[in-house]
């Protein structure tokens, strides 16, 4: 099974800044976890340490029970959606999707039939089947985002990582994609770690949220639990008060009609 464990994980940069301090976090297999917090709280660093793109200064990261600190990214069986999508500009959409699968060698190598069927499956699922021949620069933001998602999912990773994937989209598209992401998760059940600074995304997408501030974990619980029983003042202010303000504003707008 593919749960994720952060055991007393810390990240200190060469110049002394502590990005993450003593993180203890467990992601249950199949869970949708949202890491949320203000800018600079360490959530992206945590995600990148999990991906293997940053070195862990102290502590252990485990995927499926196995320690992965020293494993390169490709060995961790992870799919990641970057904030800027990072699609290969010189490859078509289809090539972007198949690149990861073509890199699999040896006993894990996939036959071209298998690759083709997976491309069909994912592109139909995400609604990008008619874009397969295009280049990333010809696509809209929403389309690129779905291709990035497809690229991450197509290798059937153990853990799916997403780094603020919706922040480059307009509000309406963001709402749509939130529903899509949730639906995808229900269908596939892949363990997902999702990083965002947006409290609404956290509350609506997550099975559980992990609120971080200044490198430290503030609270780790279901959205309801965090809202009803905030663990400290920061959570109270960052989460509860923010949501209350939104509700008040929304009511205000509606009541004037």
């Amino acid at each position, binding site marked *: 099974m593919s749960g994720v464990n952060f055991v007393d994980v810390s990240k200190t940069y060469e110049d002394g800044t502590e990005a993450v301090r003593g993180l203890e976090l467990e992601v249950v297999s199949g869970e949708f976890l949202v890491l949320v917090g203000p800018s600079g709280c360490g959530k992206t660093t945590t995600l990148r340490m999990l991906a293997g*793109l940053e070195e862990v200064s102290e502590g252990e990261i485990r995927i499926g029970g196995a320690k992965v600190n020293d494993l390169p990214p490709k060995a961790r069986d992870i799919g990641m959606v*970057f904030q800027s999508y*990072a699609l*290969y500009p010189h490859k078509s959409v289809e090539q972007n999707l198949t690149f990861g699968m073509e890199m699999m060698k040896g006993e894990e190598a996939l036959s071209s039939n298998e690759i083709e069927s997976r491309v069909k499956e994912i592109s139909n699922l995400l609604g990008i089947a008619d874009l397969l021949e295009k280049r990333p620069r010809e696509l809209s933001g929403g389309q690129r985002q779905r291709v990035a998602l497809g*690229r991450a999912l197509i290798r059937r990773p153990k853990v799916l990582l997403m780094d603020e994937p919706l922040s480059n989209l307009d509000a309406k598209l963001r709402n749509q994609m939130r529903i899509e992401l949730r639906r995808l998760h229900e269908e596939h059940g892949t363990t997902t770690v999702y990083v965002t600074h947006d409290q609404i995304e956290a509350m609506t997408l997550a099975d559980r949220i992990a609120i971080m501030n200044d490198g430290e974990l503030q609270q780790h619980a279901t959205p309801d639990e965090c809202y009803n029983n905030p663990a400290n003042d920061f959570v109270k202010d960052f989460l509860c008060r923010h949501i209350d303000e939104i509700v008040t504003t929304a009511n205000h707008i509606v009541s004037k009609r």
Partner: protein
Amino acid sequence: MSDLAIRWFAPLELRILSGMSFLSCALLSVVLLFDYFRGDYDSMAIHGVGMMALMVMILTGIDFTEEGRTRRRDMGLTASGITLACGVIGLAIRGAEYLLVDLWAGLVLLIPGLSGLYLLSTPLVSRWVESTIERAEAEDGLVRNRQLLPKWQAALKHVVLLHVVAVVMIPVLWIIDVAISPGDALQGGAMFSSPTGEHFSNILGGDNFWVWARNSVIVSIGTTLLGLCLAIPAGYAFSRYRFKGRGAMMFTFLLVQMFPGIIILVPYFMVMKSLGLLNTAIGLILAYSVTALPLCVWMLKGFFDTVPKELEEAALLDGCSQFGVFYRIILPLSLPAVAVTGLFSFLVAWNEFLLALTFNTSDDMFTLPVGLASYISATDSAWGDFAAMSLLVAIPVVLLFIVFQKFLIEGLTAGSVKG
């Protein structure tokens, strides 16, 4: 709204005249220089007067209040007349012994002069000057302005560009003329009067050219390959990795560029001699690669800096090895920059003269530039053959640029927009 149209409309003719006069003024300053150097003070005076009249004409394009219009228009007309007169007189002074330059100077004055007289007398301008323009006419005028202005601006830009091209092309045309004219005169006689291929057949028929060409090709291609093999990984390393001495090394790369080649000539010669690399292609290839390397590394590093790190991270997650990332992702994206760098290396090697002259003592190891120089002697030089060979030496590089120009333009503007 109608008052707005009338208030803000000004005939395009005025803007056109203004722009034309400005351009002519700029060109006239060059003419004045010519006159000064030729010691032709009479012409200089005439051209000076013309230039001042043109400056008055520049003012015609300035939007002014209703009261000043008539006065300005009349001033513009007078200035146009003066400009025209100066152009005619300027040509008349030279009389029969005019050069192409005088004709050009004349045109620079005549065209704005005539245009001014014509444009400032059109009915539209007259009505505008007398403020008897109506709303419909003003609105149509505004539309017409918007449609025609870009075309006029394009025309003026082209005039400027034509001048620039002429400055570059005139020496080239001269050389072509020497190459295809019989005999060895460097000047005199009409251009392209009796074309002959004798110089070209002299060069191409002889053995020397082909030997030298072969040497140049070997050395240039070798330099390009070796230079790229070294510069690409170096640029990538400088871009992606942080290591001790990185800054110092980059600075040293810049520093060595500041030394003129000639100061390392003697030590270089001694090194090549002791390595037994004089009179070899390898020696030159090594020397050229090293000379071109700093600039190539800087160019490539700058380009690699623009490739987002996230692309590499995505590839790593997709299962690429570090080398695979470089080979499958970075390199295909860098082709424009590599093309520019390669072309630059080729160019440096092809045209290099000093080192080739010093390292090669035997005639059959000369490269083309050195061979070319041997055609110039203190006594009688075969200018015709020399010109023909110059053109032949230049042709491969021109061809390369034409073939690769799409890449080059992309490479030179790389980094401005990233997909």
